[in-house]
């Protein structure tokens, strides 16, 4: 049962326009949400996060929106740049005890920014 879903495997956007990546989740126990970016042959790198008590978090060109009632979050990139071309993973966190937490990842969305 997939608890974190990214229903769009790929997305193409013109340089300078907005990229919107979507993510849905099913588990109400998730308390924190993260976006990671991954380039080929590299590990995922942390991009931005949002707590479940907020509905928006902004960091430069990146903004994450959370709609708890709909169990939906989205990542907006404005303006999109060719260097943003990568696979983006949505992840959700729940407390696994002993002070650690587990991340559940979506399958990823491959973003291509066209110059």
């Amino acid at each position: 049962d997939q608890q974190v879903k990214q229903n769009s495997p790929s997305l193409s956007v013109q340089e300078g326009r907005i990229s919107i990546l979507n993510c849905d989740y099913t588990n109400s126990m998730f308390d924190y949400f993260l976006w990671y970016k991954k380039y080929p042959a590299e590990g995922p790198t942390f991009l931005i996060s949002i707590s479940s008590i907020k509905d928006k978090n902004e960091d430069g060109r990146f903004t994450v929106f959370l709609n708890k009632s709909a169990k939906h979050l989205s990542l907006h990139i404005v303006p999109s740049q060719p260097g943003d071309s990568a696979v983006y993973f949505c992840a959700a966190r729940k407390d696994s005890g002993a002070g650690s937490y587990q991340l559940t990842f979506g399958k990823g969305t491959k973003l291509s920014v066209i110059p």
Partner: protein
Amino acid sequence: DAGITQSPRHKVTETGTPVTLRCHQTENHRYMYWYRQDPGHGLRLIHYSYGVKDTDKGEVSDGYSVSRSKTEDFLLTLESATSSQTSVYFCAISGRQGSPLHFGNGTRLTVT
């Protein structure tokens, strides 16, 4: 970049052989994780550690074991590799409760 080194970076092995992947960190972080990435599945947690000799299972732990005898090293062992374990394996670390994970660059394992 967080100081995480995974070794080897690439490995090809035969079905039935034991394989050990190593994750080494220089950050003195308490928490360490092993994930696998497969097409159509994203990243899935195999095992994690919340301190030396303290480990627990993730969602896809069958066929894998781990050990953490010192803070800086977290080993993932496939006792008898199978073709279904062909994957890219990522190690991740975090220092404080609630802080985002930092990932290594992965080990690509092929089981023939």
